């Protein structure tokens, strides 16, 4: 008996819902408006969050857990750090550092900022110029030269990250770069698979030192460790060494830390704006569903008079509203994906005070979030009109004929 009534209920729901959906064509104007409203909100929601996500992903994948970065104690970025040549030797000889036939895999580096014109605006932007030792290529094992060759030690040559070439003018292979009193020849272009290092320019540290009057000092040491677990031993050895006053971080943590501030600002702002817009879209779907219900007053009343229950009517209105929202959500997600995914841009990384090139990342998780958000809007937008439809007094509604 229970099974039978459940079956009856389902068949009622199906009948009413199909009836509604069949009449959708007659209400395509207002339905289209509700769909566009939801699509707009989802587009913005996904696009803004994909920007935050892209920035985070760029910095998060920059570091690897088996690489450590060492800076002077009390500094929070490489830029403010100073390490002397003796310090860098002690660090390279510390336990836990991976060694090859040529010696320990540790690169003492300099990090300076130079002004270069941005392609998109023509105004100057801060670009990171990093002086490295030859072991840097083994420490950053993701780095590949995609065009040209590596710089030769001791010469005024630079290699440029693929992101930097795209975003800043005058960095093409073979071009001459004037920085202060020195000239640098671009001899190669490198890729690191989309990490923050791709926004940098690299040269030989020993050439950069005199050019920037740094004597024999460096700013940081990047060290490849035997394994990710060796980090604790390495850190312990350096921080307890009385000759040194240094801060030791995993490279991955150092870069993840840098993305935190901007990521939270963009996410916060994006959620706030998408939330406000969602309220606006809910109003428009409320309007659409209320007018859908009132356009069908007669039909609903007739069904009720024939013995259809209130439940199926509620469900049918909700289904219609959710369906419209789903279409809007998918549409919005598609616009965000095709319009913004892989869109390249740069922004200032406040911690390193230099430009980071990154691409918007419209991830599947973001698309799912966007569609869920659309469904929530559809649910709220359909609920009240649905209840109203179910409560229609049958006699009065029929009289409206």
């Amino acid at each position, binding site marked *: 008996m229970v099974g039978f009534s459940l079956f009856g209920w389902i068949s009622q729901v199906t009948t009413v819902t199909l009836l509604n959906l069949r009449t959708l064509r007659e209400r395509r104007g207002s339905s289209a408006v509700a769909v566009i409203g939801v699509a707009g909100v989802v587009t913005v929601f996904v696009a803004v969050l994909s920007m935050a996500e892209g920035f985070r992903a760029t910095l998060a994948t920059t570091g690897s857990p088996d690489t450590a970065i060492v800076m002077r104690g009390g500094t929070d970025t490489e830029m403010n750090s100073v390490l002397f040549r003796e310090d860098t030797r002690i660090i390279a000889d510390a336990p836990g550092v991976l060694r090859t036939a040529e010696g320990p895999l540790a690169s003492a580096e300099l990090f300076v900022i130079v002004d270069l014109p941005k392609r998109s605006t023509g105004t100057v932007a801060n670009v990171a110029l990093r002086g490295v030792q030859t072991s840097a290529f083994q420490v950053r094992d993701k780095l590949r030269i995609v065009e040209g060759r590596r710089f030769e030690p001791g010469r005024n040559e630079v290699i440029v990250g693929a992101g930097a070439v795209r975003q800043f003018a005058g960095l093409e292979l073979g071009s001459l770069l004037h920085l202060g009193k020195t000239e640098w020849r671009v001899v190669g272009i490198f890729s690191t698979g989309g990490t923050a290092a791709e926004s940098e320019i690299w040269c030989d540290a020993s050439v950069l030192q005199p050019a920037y009057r740094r004597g024999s000092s460096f700013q940081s040491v990047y060290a490849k460790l035997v394994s990710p677990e060796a980090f604790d031993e390495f850190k312990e050895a350096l921080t307890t060494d009385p000759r040194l006053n240094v801060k030791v971080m995993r490279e991955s943590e150092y870069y993840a830390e840098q993305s935190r501030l901007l990521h939270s600002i963009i996410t916060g702002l994006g959620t706030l704006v998408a939330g406000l817009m969602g309220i606006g879209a809910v109003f*428009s779907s409320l309007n659409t569903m209320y*007018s859908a219900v009132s356009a069908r007053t007669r039909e609903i009343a007739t069904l009720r008079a024939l013995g259809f229950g209130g439940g199926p009517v509620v469900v049918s209105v909700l289904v219609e509203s959710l369906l419209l929202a789903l279409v809007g959500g998918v549409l919005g997600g598609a616009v965000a994906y095709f319009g913004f995914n892989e869109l390249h841009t*740069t922004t200032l990384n406040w911690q390193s005070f230099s430009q980071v090139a990154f691409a918007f990342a419209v991830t599947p998780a973001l698309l799912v979030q966007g569609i869920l958000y659309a469904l929530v809007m559809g649910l709220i937008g359909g609920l009240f009109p649905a209840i109203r439809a179910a409560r229609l007094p049958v006699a009065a509604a029929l009289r409206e004929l």
Partner: protein
Amino acid sequence: MRFLPLIWSSLRRKKFRTIFTLLSILVAFVLFGYLAAINMAFRLGVDVTGADRLVLTHKVSLILPLPFSYLARIQAIPGVVDVAHATWFGGIYQEPSNFFPQMAVEPESYLRLYPEFLLSEEERRAWFANRTGAIAGRSTAERFGWKVGDRIPLQATIWRKKDGSRTWEFTLEGIYDGAEKGTDTTQFLFHYDYLDEARAFGEGLVGWYIIRIDDPHRAAEIAERIDNTFANSPYETKTSTEKAFVQAFAKQIGDIGTIIAAILSAVFFTILLVAGNTMAQSVRERTSELAVLKTLGYSSRLVLTLVLAESFVLAGVGGGLGLGLAWWLIQQGDPTGGGLPVFYFPLRDLLLGIGFIGALGLAAGILPGVQAMRLRIVDALRRT
């Protein structure tokens, strides 16, 4: 005026629809207003920069220092009226996230260059007299609840002291206000002498120079003269107008500001499209009523006016409340809790918003209005 009750009753015809339409217009305009303020903040208040001020930095990058000795040489260049210098401190107050700009300056010359920083005569004298004294802008002081006389410790990230410590203590001697809405009141300023004598390295170096010139129209020429003076020296310079300097800096973040603005204006128009469509729809549903009005002798022109008036009332009420609410929200402070250098509702955008309200009223009302005007009574009545 005597038609007001008629407009009122047509708005009440479907109360829910009217209310929801009003609310979605309201939301659109709240967003518009709020984003105008955020966009302004991303532009770093570039509209209020001084036209007669130049900024001189190291040619290679603004993070590289310049010698203090340039001060006198700049002063001697024809066209230069006044010079001040500033040095970035970049300290941490309690937590790294409590960011605000801190600069070591020579107090008298800096305040001469920035007359828009308003400081009372007593506070000014107290600050000049105290070597470890500092002043802070109103919004930073309010953000951390500082009062004059408070001791403020900052952890240096760049400037170690000679004794190896990193803690610098300051006494707050004054709180400055901005002469204009767009004036940056987040700065923290203290004596350069204090920094220079106690820091472990970098003695005699400053961060950048701010220069007042006699004629803003000759800015490019004077800037070139200054840069030529220092060409081929160990410290080559780059001089630009303050406006160009701030704009270039804003553009470093700017791509994102532009992207946000673009996305949001698209959505602003989406919401308006939705609201406008609903308004038009509600007029279409009343075709027969409008025909009745015409039968009663209302002229076509009057019917058009009535429909338009209704649409303007909706747009005006919704949009007006929205702009008002946005203004109120902006008054409550910026979303980062005082981290943005400027945060206010620019007058230009307020006027633009009012323009949009008018455009919405017209766009939503004109089509159904014209249809209503052209309506032939017989057709309209037959349709029902």
